[in-house]
């Protein structure tokens, strides 16, 4: 029997490849993900190990919020360094002055992310080199006007040795001459950041204050316990002004973070691998069902000559196992490629994964094999049992007769129960507004999907018949023949379409969720009335001087530039943010609607406008007097970096008006003159400035705005679309990545369609021959196959879109709990696109089977020669 099974595997190589492809892609995904996880983890660990190599203790200065120009010093100075050096067991102390420096590239755009733009001091030894920052060109900075950059930052920015580098730290633009480039192992820099180096005195002036440092890296002598050393050093430090951490603890913290982030990444990739395998299982089950119905006579003969039912089952399963094994090995090889490709793919979506060698653990190979074989054998299980039911007498029957169609009643009942339970669950979930329904939502979605897959054969009849009517009108002969062929075996049609349905359910569901979130943000922006074209802000509020708004409004094409300054205040009872702004122009950048009073009234000094919500909470009315307490600290203002309030602690203002809630001025606002005496620090003058362009001048204004502020790299100019994207989170990015990954499931589904069509053409050889004999042209034969393929694909797509849309509608209520702006909406153009893709996929999947069908000659295929 084993020999029979093996012969069967190798008898039809093309079919073998097609079936195997479904498993190959699934296992490739699994092993690729595993290998990628190991590789990324290893690369991270290498980077972090390098980063803390030789650091036994790290002493860090605890700095408060420091404003530019503050003449301050940290507690870490040379004297303390010497004291630590004198401790037994300490081999070296390296003091450094570090902070952030945002570098502008040659085009005046800031480079890197905020927290990845590092600045530090270059500390040369006697040979003029700094072991922490090995030079790649030039020399280290040695004077106040010199700077060195990380090699990649210099290259990306377009800077060469001798150029003047523009950068900013906490205020105005600075320029220094580039004298060298260096390498670094700091993970923040190696994963896409920048590094600027200064000589020690300059770095101290910029960061930690003259004569003091921001951190000490302490090296220990061999055999010294770094935890114990840390405790001893900690005792020497001035309380609250500095803290010490052991190198092993730092490395552990970093390692934990790495493991967590790579694990969550691997986990979400595994979900896609699971989907791919699930879809693949459908294809395998379908293929084996078709194989067995083709081989009925052969199986009957085996039974007639004495093979037992069990032997028939076993032979089929052995065939599946061999197929699964071969496919898994091929899948593993392909998985290596997947693992290599994932890093650039993920990096392109903003993940900064470090470089490293490919790590192939034997376990990855083992998992791929086991999963591939198990999935294949399980998928072949039901078809194999069906094979065993073939009666020996069928071998003797004269005429090839297709087995009678089993009734779909049982299936209908099961499907209705599953689907009904799922739909009911989802309706229940739809009534939930908090995330507590998430488990019910998952279970309901799975039930709905399972129900749809079980019911698909029943649904295929009305849907395909309906589609067929239109097709028969367009293509009288081939259209009708294709429709009848698609209806001939509803189970086969449905199983093939189900693979596509699953992929499209997920894609549609996610698209609808994403669309609804974006729709919500759009409506929210409309409601909350941010009508400005640009928002100008800066890192930490630095870089926008008092005159910034004036300079921006002088730019040609700008209608208004409205500064916003928010300070933390007590409005009556609890904390809130009070915004000082250009009251007369505020209406140009924000859709302000007053329910009582007017903006004009607020222009006067010591009058205030409060939002409806604030007024409602405290029972305020226009004309009332309101006592405002300036907190003098950062509490209250949400999402804004507050200025430090000085001057009189309390003030009493007249309420000049109450306005409908507005995102731009969430709680209350006053004129700039009113708030001026409470915000003294010049650098904190503005948190942000909203810019409204003159009609038709909005596009391309960003660069002009930036240069009006001296092209300071700290300045950020965001247009409407960026602001919108910020509010809808990274849904767009996630969606795009998901499309890519679910594309895999789609490819597997297409393989299934090709497989089914090829089998159908093979089974219908005689019919096609007869059709050719009585005058069906090759072209029409091909069209017949193509139309059947298109019908299967569009049927799967329609099911998937309906199910996906329903799940997104019901599950969307869960999203609403954490994303209140969410508003359900159907992205019709996208849905139309999906249908179009299904159509194209149908045409493409039919290319090869249709060509085969077209090549059949009437005489040969009717078996008359």
């Amino acid at each position, binding site marked *: 029997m084993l020999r029979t099974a093996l012969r069967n595997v190798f008898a039809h190589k093309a079919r073998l490849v097609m079936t195997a492809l479904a498993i190959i892609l699934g296992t490739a995904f699994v092993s690729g993900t595993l290998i990628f996880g190991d590789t990324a983890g290893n690369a991270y660990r290498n980077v972090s190990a390098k980063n803390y190599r030789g650091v036994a203790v790290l002493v860090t200065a605890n700095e408060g919020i420091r404003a530019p120009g503050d003449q301050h010093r940290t507690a870490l100075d040379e004297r303390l360094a010497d004291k630590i050096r004198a401790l037994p067991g300490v081999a070296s102390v390296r003091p450094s002055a570090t902070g952030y420096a945002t570098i502008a590239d040659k085009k005046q755009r800031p480079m890197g992310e905020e927290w990845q733009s590092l600045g530090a001091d270059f500390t040369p030894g006697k040979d003029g080199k700094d072991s922490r920052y090995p030079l790649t060109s030039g020399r280290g900075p040695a004077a106040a006007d010199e700077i060195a950059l990380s090699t990649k930052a210099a290259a990306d920015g377009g800077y060469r040795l001798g150029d003047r580098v523009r950068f900013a730290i906490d205020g105005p633009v600075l320029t220094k001459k580039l004298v060298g480039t260096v390498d670094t192992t700091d993970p923040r820099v190696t994963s896409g950041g920048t590094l600027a180096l200064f000589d020690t005195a300059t770095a101290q002036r910029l960061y930690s204050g003259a004569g003091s440092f921001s951190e000490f890296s302490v090296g220990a002598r061999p055999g010294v316990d770094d935890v114990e050393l840390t405790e001893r050093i900690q005792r020497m430090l001035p309380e609250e002004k500095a803290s010490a951490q052991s190198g092993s603890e730092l490395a552990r913290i970093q390692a934990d973070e790495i493991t967590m982030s790579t694990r969550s990444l691997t986990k979400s990739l595994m979900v896609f691998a699971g989907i791919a395998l699930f879809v693949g299982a459908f294809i395998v089950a379908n293929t084996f069902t078709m194989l067995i119905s083709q081989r009925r006579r052969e199986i009957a003969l085996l039974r007639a000559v004495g093979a037992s039912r069990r032997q028939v089952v076993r032979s089929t399963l052995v065939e599946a196992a061999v197929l699964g094994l071969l496919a898994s090995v091929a899948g593993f090889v392909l998985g290596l490629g997947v693992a290599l490709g994932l890093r650039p793919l993920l990096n392109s979506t903003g993940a900064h994964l470090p470089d490293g060698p490919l790590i192939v653990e034997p376990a990855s190979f083992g998992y791929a094999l086991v999963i591939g074989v198990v999935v294949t054998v399980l998928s072949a299980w039901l078809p194999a049992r069906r094979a065993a039911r073939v009666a020996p007498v069928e071998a003797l029957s004269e005429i090839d007769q297709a087995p009678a169609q089993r009734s779909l009643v049982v299936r209908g009942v099961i499907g209705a129960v599953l689907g009904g339970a799922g739909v009911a669950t989802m309706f229940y979930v739809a009534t939930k507004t908090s995330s507590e329904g998430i488990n019910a939502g998952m279970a309901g979605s799975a039930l709905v999907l399972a129900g749809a897959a079980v019911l698909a054969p029943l649904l295929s009849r009305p849907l395909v018949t309906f589609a067929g009517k239109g097709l028969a009108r367009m293509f009288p002969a081939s259209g009708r023949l294709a429709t009848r062929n698609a209806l001939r075996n509803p189970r086969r049609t449905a199983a093939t379409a189900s693979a596509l349905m699953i992929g499209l359910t997920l894609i549609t569901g996610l698209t609808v969720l994403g669309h609804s979130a974006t729709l919500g943000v759009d409506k929210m922006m409309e409601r909350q009335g941010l009508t400005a074209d640009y928002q100008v802000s800066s890192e930490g509020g630095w870089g926008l001087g008092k005159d910034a708004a004036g300079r921006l409004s002088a730019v040609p094409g700008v209608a208004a530039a409205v500064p916003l300054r928010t300070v933390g205040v007590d409005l009556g009872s609890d904390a809130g943010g009070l915004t000082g702004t250009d009251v007369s122009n505020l209406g140009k950048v924000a859709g302000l609607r007053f329910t009582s009073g007017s903006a004009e009234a607020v222009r006067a000094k010591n009058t205030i406008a409060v939002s409806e919500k604030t007024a409602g909470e405290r029972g305020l009315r226009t004309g009332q007097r309101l006592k405002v307490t300036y907190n003098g600290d950062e509490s209250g203002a949400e999402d804004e970096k507050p200025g430090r309030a000085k001057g009189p602690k309390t003030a009493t203002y007249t309420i000049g008006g109450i306005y409908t809630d507005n995102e731009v001025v969430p709680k209350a606002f006053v004129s700039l003159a009113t708030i001026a005496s409470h915000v003294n620090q010049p650098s904190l003058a503005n948190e942000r400035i909203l810019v409204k362009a003159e009609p038709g001048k909005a596009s391309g204004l960003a660069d002009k705005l930036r240069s009006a502020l001296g092209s300071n790299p700290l300045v950020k100019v965001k247009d409407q679309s960026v602001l919108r994207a910020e509010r809808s989170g990274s849904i767009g990015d996630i969606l795009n990545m998901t499309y890519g990954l679910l594309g895999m499931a789609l490819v597997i589904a297409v393989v299934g369609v090709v497989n089914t069509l090829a089998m159908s053409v093979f089974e219908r050889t005689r019919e096609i021959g007869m059709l050719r004999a009585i*005058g069906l042209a090759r072209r029409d034969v091909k069209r017949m196959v193509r139309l059947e393929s298109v019908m299967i694909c569009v049927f799967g797509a329609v099911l998937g879109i309906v199910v996906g849309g329903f799940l997104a509608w019901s599950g969307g209520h869960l999203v609403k709990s954490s994303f209140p702006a969410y508003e359900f909406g159907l992205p019709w153009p996208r849905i139309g696109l999906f249908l179009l893709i299904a159509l194209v996929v149908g045409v493409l999947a039919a290319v090869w089977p249709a060509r085969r069908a077209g090549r059949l000659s009437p005489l040969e295929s009717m078996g008359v020669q």
Partner: protein
Amino acid sequence: MSRSAPFPTSAPFPTSGAAAPVAVAARATELSKVYGQGETRVVALDAVSVEFRRAEFTAIMGPSGSGKSTLMHCMAGLDSLSSGSARIGDVELASLNDRELTRLRRGRVGFVFQAFNLLPTLNAIENITLPMDIAGRRPDQAWLDQIVATMGLSARLTHRPSQLSGGQQQRVAVARALASQPEIIFADEPTGNLDSRSGAELLGFLQESVPALRQTVVMVTHDPVAASYADRVIFLADGRIVDELRGPSADAVLDRMKAFDSKGRTN
């Protein structure tokens, strides 16, 4: 069902070519068909010349391997010729490419095969009108009704092939061949899978369609009884026409066949 007059003699149908009773529907001239090359070379037809006259029922007989099926396939545009000429009406088949041959089969030729005549997914009437559907033509409803009634299929039109008996299936096939009013019908062992009663019934239909509809029928068979329904029997052996019989009886045909058999054995 009366076997005596399935078709009304005063036919309401167009009877083209009535003015030329000896017109030729199809003709083979020096028709040869060779398979393979060198040692495996087999001459299936060796310079066969034959005419099939309009409104005549011709049976082609011969032992297996005699080339009778090949002759039919070549004449019907299902197989290519090695040399010589095959014409249907005034169309030379050798000059046609695959697409033109397909169109010729669709428009001017009717087929009845031994088995697998019908598409299992289409019901009886859909199978009958299939060639017209393929050609994008509307069937002549009166003609269709007449044929269906004559074939005794009126009550079975919405049945799928699997719900019809073998005889009924073959009658549907004959109805399909007649429905498109082809110039010539080729039947390949049409009764091969039928019991003798159903076979006789089917042959009766074919026979009587010839004078009634002025239909030309060419039938390949190895059954002397089937051949006896024809107006004329052509005997093939080794790719050549060896004899011809007009107005045959089953016994006469059988005698001739026996003669060839013994000749073949003595060879």
